[in-house]
């Protein structure tokens, strides 16, 4: 009996408003895209089945889903962290790029250190580079009052161009015909958790990073100060918090997480830096952060959801005639619906009204 009550309590906790709305939004996005798919003459059932099969059917499918989710979770986290200080870091893409490049370079050099150390060093350098690159924005903001939206958009383009220059020129792998660095040493590659998949500990690192950030914001002094600065800069100043330092710190942190996303991708998936390796993870991160509703825990959940869509759409692509563009449409719709909780609440209200109109005896329920 008692355990039943506990499960009930747990369910109640899980079914809170935020979660309900996110779930309903997903359903709405699915239904809408289903209609679009149907209108274009394809079978929505087939599409959804393919997506679920591609994401969950078998070990390698699940592995693929987790691999896809990893950079999304981290990019979403990077955006969320900056957002806590009320900073819009549209530059995660650039930070991720440079982080990946730095990790790849360090990883491909023979430093004569043991593997584990080398790996950690490579990751840390990636984080440092990503962090410093974002730090520029923080410094510009504090020093010159520069708008971070402009600065990050500009720095994105610069990062991508400069990285492309290095990997097509001075740092290009010998004999390679595409823009890429040398392979990283085997000792710095992340070990595969399941053979013949790309699944590595990277996903664990991503999830742990989210947990750490949640803990950081809830229980540490700098986390607290970031939140205060984000919510009320004047009050923070009056309380003796050095707002400039905090702004820079948040950007550094956010950029470091972006750099980590890039570094893990290099060491876990590609084994080197390859031009164009990111399909806009930085921007998808904004969507992930939106779905995660500003909470690092939410980011894990939403990163996984986007991972499912991306991984599932690979099978959709392979198995059906439905063009891959539909998967993009689904993703965009998910973002839009999830970002629109009021639409969902409105619909709930309307449907309640309809129900109560059809069924006058249930009118009491409206009061509550």
């Amino acid at each position, binding site marked *: 009996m008692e355990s039943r009550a506990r499960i009930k309590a747990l369910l109640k906790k899980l079914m809170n408003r935020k979660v309900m709305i996110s779930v309903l939004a997903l359903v709405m996005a699915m239904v809408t895209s289903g209609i679009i798919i149907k209108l274009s003459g394809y079978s929505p059932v087939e599409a959804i089945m393919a997506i679920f099969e591609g994401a969950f059917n078998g070990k*390698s499918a699940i592995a*693929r889903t987790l*691999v896809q989710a990893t950079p999304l979770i981290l990019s979403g986290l990077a955006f969320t962290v900056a957002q806590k200080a009320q900073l819009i870091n549209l530059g995660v893409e650039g930070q991720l790029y440079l982080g990946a490049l730095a990790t790849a370079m360090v990883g491909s050099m023979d430093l004569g250190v043991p593997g584990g150390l080398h790996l950690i060093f490579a990751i840390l350098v990636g984080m440092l580079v990503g962090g410093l690159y974002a730090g520029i924005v923080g410094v510009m903001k504090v020093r010159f009052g520069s708008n971070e939206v402009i600065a990050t958009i500009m720095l994105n383009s610069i990062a991508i*161009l400069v990285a*492309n*220059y290095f990997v*097509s020129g001075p740092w*290009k792998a010998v004999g*390679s*015909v*595409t*823009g*890429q660095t040398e392979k990283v040493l085997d000792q710095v590659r992340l070990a595969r958790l399941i053979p*013949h*998949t*790309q699944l590595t500990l990277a996903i664990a690192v991503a999830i742990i990073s989210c947990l750490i950030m949640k803990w950081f914001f809830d229980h540490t002094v700098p986390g607290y100060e970031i939140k205060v600065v984000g919510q009320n800069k004047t009050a923070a100043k009056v309380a003796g918090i050095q707002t400039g330092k905090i702004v820079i710190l948040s950007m550094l942190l956010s950029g470091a997480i972006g750099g980590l996303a890039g570094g893990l*991708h290099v060491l876990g*998936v*590609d*084994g080197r830096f*390859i*031009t*164009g*390796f*990111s*399909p806009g993870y930085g921007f998808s991160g904004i969507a992930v952060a939106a779905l995660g509703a500003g909470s690092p825990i939410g980011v894990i959940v939403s990163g996984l959801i986007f991972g499912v869509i*991306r*991984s599932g759409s*690979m*099978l959709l*692509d*392979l*198995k059906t005639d439905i063009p*891959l563009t539909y998967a993009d449409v689904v993703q965009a719709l998910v973002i839009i619906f999830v970002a629109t909780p009021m639409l969902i609440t409105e619909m709930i209200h309307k449907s309640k009204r309809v129900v109560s109109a059809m069924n006058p005896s249930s009118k009491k329920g409206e009061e509550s």
Partner: protein
Amino acid sequence: TPASEGTAVEKVDAGDSAGETSSSRVGIVLTTGGLGDKNFNDMAYDGLVQAKEDLAIEFDYVEPKVVSDYVSHFRMYAESGEYELILGLGADQADAIAEVASEFPEQKFSLVDSAADLSGVRTVYTDWTHQTFLCGVIAGLETKAGNLENANEENVVGVVLGMEYPILLEGVMGFTSGVKYVNPDAEVLQATVGDFSDPAKGKEIALSMYNRGADFIQHIAGASGLGVFNAAKEENRYAFGVGGNQNHNAPDYIVATSIRNVNEMVYNEVVLALEDKWVPGPTGSGLKEGSVGYSVEGSNVVLSESTIKIVEEVKAMIINGELQPCRTIEELDAWVGNNQYFQ
């Protein structure tokens, strides 16, 4: 289904095995550019459509979002075990296809457009320098002669790149050495759009070259090249297409296309696989095989007989090995010193 005007496939003799293998499936991993590029991917797709018609095969295709996804796609094909042949496209798939091929030694893998030597994988490559060299020769001859209606006095031509990828720079060198082979004093301008799908910027870049005296521009810029054609029309100058025959895009202004018959290459791989003639290892395919070259078909620009004669002569020289286009910018000066058509 994606259309691809002007990429007609010349039929390779399919032998008489077509009937028996009606249930064979072929899978292809396209490049990150995806279908609709009216080029590489669309041509490969057309090759398979042709194969489906001629050889009664079935085929599946996937369009990866990013380079990192290649491995997953190859593995999904291989794991299903349903495919007679798994095709890859583009040099950047080499790592991925090699990794999966090592896990599935029984499976046939072919990678089109890569020269890498990968165990268990058949790679077929074309030479970029061979692809653009002959259009370079045309440009070199015509910009100096100035006979064509819209050619000018100045001895300047240009190349527009989409992005500065190492492999595309070979295409630039092919064109440049082609120009210099017949016209060593010509200036070859070069600029990069920074995007493969920004025709507006492509046009601006082409205009900047035409303004500086160029009268012929070779683009290697994907859809950004459409802007180059537009600039040619507007400025009354000439351009060269790349990949599939693009001459119809602006027949009065596009002199020729630096052709690469990816469709034929793909088609051939299917034939080989069905006929059990498939063997792993790298195979070159160039001017001789007809996989690359120039095509004036569909263009309204009439080249003089002497030009055509010289181009064909040069083509023959490359095919029989008398002439090798220059490959790198560093070697160019020395190469020009040693290789001249008009002594």
